[in-house]
């Protein structure tokens, strides 16, 4: 994943899911379903290949267990967003916001 390139849908939603807390695979899947209003439904195959890609790009890291001891499941690997991942997510959101602004303006124009 080169700097400046846009994220894939699955990578974007995974980063978004990790933006507020560390999560394990299944938690990420559930959160992606929730935040995309059920539009993005990943299977474990797509989830873990994307996680591997994000790990290699340094956008996330694997962490030992969960910070919240009650939620910690030792069978799981937990993932955390890195500083680089946070900036990638922020620039992707900025790009989307910009596109949305343009789309809204054009819709206003065509409505006239």
């Amino acid at each position: 994943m080169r700097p400046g390139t846009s994220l894939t849908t699955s990578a974007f939603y995974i980063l978004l899911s990790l933006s507020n807390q560390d999560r394990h695979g299944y938690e990420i899947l559930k959160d992606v379903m929730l935040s995309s209003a059920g539009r993005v439904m990943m299977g474990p195959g797509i989830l873990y290949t994307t996680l591997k890609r994000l790990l290699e790009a340094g956008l996330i890291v694997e962490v030992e267990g969960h910070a919240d001891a009650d939620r910690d499941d030792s069978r799981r690997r937990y993932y955390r967003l890195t500083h680089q991942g946070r900036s990638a997510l922020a620039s992707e959101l900025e790009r989307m916001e910009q596109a949305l602004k343009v789309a809204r303006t054009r819709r206003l124009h065509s409505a006239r």
Partner: protein
Amino acid sequence: MTFPVSSLERVYGLILLAYPRTFRDQYEREMRLVFRELLRDPKVGRIQLVGIMLRDLAHGLARPERLPSRALVVRSSMYGLIIIAFSLAAQGLHPGAYIGVSVTPVPFIAFTAAGFWGARRTDTFTGGMWTCLIIGLVSSTTVLWDKLLFGIFPFYDAWSFLLGLLMAAGFCIVPGIIGSIAGAAASRDRATRV
């Protein structure tokens, strides 16, 4: 805590074989765990689950490293075009020889060599099979060129042409596999020697 192993879980285990061994060594346990939880989730319906499985299968099979490089596609297509040129030249010089040539062991030898070359070049069995497929697809258009240039179409209709193509593909797949296995093995041998 133990989980019941359903038939869908067993099928999913087979789907995981589409992923590379190194990847499975790293993530298979987690992937199975996540799939098991999806199975137990009342909000995820069986049809949705089958959709997930099919998408994961397609994702595993269509990994970028499995697709042929542009260079391999170009080179293989060029070999296919050379085969067409030879066939057309043979047809032009010795009309009627086409049928005789196509059923001789020439394709068998050619596709063994093609598989071997592709596998050696990419260091993978898949590379050899891609080479055979591309050469086969390009060279199979010879029949259409024959029709255009010489008015020859050795089939009754489109269906018998399709059947002929399938038979030819069946005939070429075995030498392709043999060549690809040999090429991949030779690459491994070369790698261990280095």
